[in-house]
């Protein structure tokens, strides 16, 4: 295809992506190094006879508005927002490291800072959910592959639901069951014979339920991918292994898993990126008192009465950095594939 033809074909989609993905990323970067203008203050001296003179400081509405209109981004503050208490909290971290003696102490104190608390949850969520999703997806795929084809369609239909349904809705549906008045919540209270056990009261229980939600939501994705992979199993190798007397376990261990291995890495990479941006379940579970994530920070900053754009932008940049780190292996893989092809 000629360069000029290619250009015209790609133009609409490229324009859309540049305008609404590339430029916003730049806009976020700019916003994150600017803070809102402070109000312009003026001192007004009012003198009344007998009482004397008082100096009052008031906000100059007009000047403030003019300044905000002239520079809507705000004033340049460099990396200050990144280092403030709501984000990386550099000063607080230094203090903690200097004043604490044991690692344990450092960790407990760090977990009081919002950013590090959110990171702790995000990373725990990402690195617990991802392996479980792969394990469950694998077993479901093996199982569905073995059942009578009469049921397969129905099983796949129900399996897809948790994945296809809106994340917020899936989270709510589960949350209403786990809620202390819901059916699962009451069941757990009954089993533990502790009528006060409640999701809302315990950070540990909340984390656990969010993780269970994450696995429930994403296991179907892994299942579908692995199930597709199982349809292309090398039958001759399986035959040969059977003739050599390999047990079922050995067939799975030495033929099926190596065959699925590229798919397992694919699911792992996608899941790491998706779980890192966990956010809807926190809204659905009403969990922000116990668990926060970077994405939730951004959402919270943007949605409040006072839209804190700069703070949201700084969190966004930190999220983008995190995603880039996780994305790096994917890019490496794509590059390798491309080199092999050409």
């Amino acid at each position, binding site marked *: 295809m000629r360069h000029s*033809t*290619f250009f015209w*074909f790609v133009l609409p*989609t490229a324009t*859309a*992506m540049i305008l*609404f*993905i590339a430029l*916003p*990323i*730049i*806009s*976020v970067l700019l916003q994150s190094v600017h803070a809102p203008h402070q109000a312009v203050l003026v001192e007004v001296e009012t003198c009344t006879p007998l009482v004397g003179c008082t100096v009052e400081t008031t906000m100059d509405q007009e000047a403030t508005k003019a300044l905000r209109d002239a520079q*809507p981004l705000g004033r340049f503050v460099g990396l200050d927002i990144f280092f403030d208490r709501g984000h990386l909290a550099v000063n607080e971290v230094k203090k903690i490291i200097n004043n604490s003696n044991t690692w344990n102490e450092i960790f407990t104190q760090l977990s009081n800072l919002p950013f590090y608390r959110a990171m702790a949850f995000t990373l725990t969520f990402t690195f617990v959910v991802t392996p479980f999703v792969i394990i469950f997806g694998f*077993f479901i795929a093996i*199982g569905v592959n*073995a*059942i009578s084809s009469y*049921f397969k369609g129905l*099983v796949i*239909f*129900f399996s897809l*639901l*948790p994945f*296809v*349904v*809106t994340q917020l*809705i899936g989270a709510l*549906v589960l949350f*209403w*069951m786990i*809620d202390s*008045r*819901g*059916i699962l919540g009451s*069941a757990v209270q009954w089993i533990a014979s502790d009528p006060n056990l409640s999701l809302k009261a315990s950070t540990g229980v909340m984390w656990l339920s969010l993780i269970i939600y994450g696995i*429930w939501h994403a296991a179907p*994705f892994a299942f*579908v*991918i692995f199930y*597709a992979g199982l349809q*292309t199993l090398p039958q001759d190798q399986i035959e040969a292994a*059977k003739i050599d007397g390999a047990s079922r376990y050995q067939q799975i261990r030495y033929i099926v898993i190596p065959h699925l291995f590229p*798919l397992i890495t694919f699911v792992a990479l996608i899941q790491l990126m998706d779980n890192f*941006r966990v*956010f809807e379940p926190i809204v659905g579970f009403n969990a922000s008192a116990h668990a926060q994530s970077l994405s939730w920070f*951004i959402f919270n900053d943007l*949605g409040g009465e006072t839209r804190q*754009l700069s703070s949201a932008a700084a*969190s*966004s*940049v930190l*999220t983008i950095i995190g*995603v*880039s780190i*996780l*994305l790096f292996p994917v890019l490496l*893989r794509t590059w390798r*594939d*491309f080199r092999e092809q050409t």
Partner: protein
Amino acid sequence: MALRIDRRPISLKLLIYFLIFSWVIIAAFPFIWTVWGSFKVELDFFSISDWTYALTGERTKAEYGSPFTGKGYEGAWLDNYFWRNAINTFIICFFVVCTSLTIGTLGGYALSRSSYQYTFWLLVIALIFRAMPPITLVAGYMLPFFEWNIWGILPTTIIVLVAINQPFTLWMLHSFFQNIPKELDESAKVDGCTQFEAFRFVIIPAMWPGVITTGLFSFLLAYNDFAVTSMLLAENNRTMVPAIAAFLGTTYTEGNIMFAVAAVVSTTIPLFLLVMFFQKQIVSGLTAGAVKG
């Protein structure tokens, strides 16, 4: 030919069926439970005294004389104008799917037919864009949209969702177009067609399966979106998912949580039908990316 060795022992068979059956219950039960519960009053669905009330609907019977009531739906759809949110959702989904497929097929086709290095780099950039969480981009939209006074309206959100959709659409259509043999449009060009005519008369008739699958995923993205729609739409333009989130804020205090339950069930039904009718396409779309890589 079934070898004796292929036959699974009965115990293993039972175990497999048991495990798969449990998985189906785990996957489907929460939805069935919620659909059932959405026709009850709050004291039945969230029963403190006796969980069987949720099944039998004792309180619902006491209040309305029948174990089922449509009060939750009435409250959500009529009293809280959920029908407006539903209309907004369908406007957004329709235009997002149409626009992103139109510009996506053009781009995906060109990427699959050009053999220069830059196609690879374009695809890699699309992959990077795809990995950006939409909520981080939203932080970048806010200020310009406020400045230009285009915040809060449907067209803005449609364009934003189309753009966020593009990387994925491109990747998917790119791989579908690669499966359509190049000889088709080459021979059309030999017969005197321009590239666009070859695309119009030869490729378009052959591309529908791939386009339908990609369209399904565009629809799902637009329909399921929460981060973008909740931030970029004004209150009277809200779609269904952010409307449900807004219900939660008010209903936990007002005690009409059943409105939210009814709204959730109403929003799930189209997805239910979608999976039912397009199961094959969804499965093939999910695997298209994976098996290739």
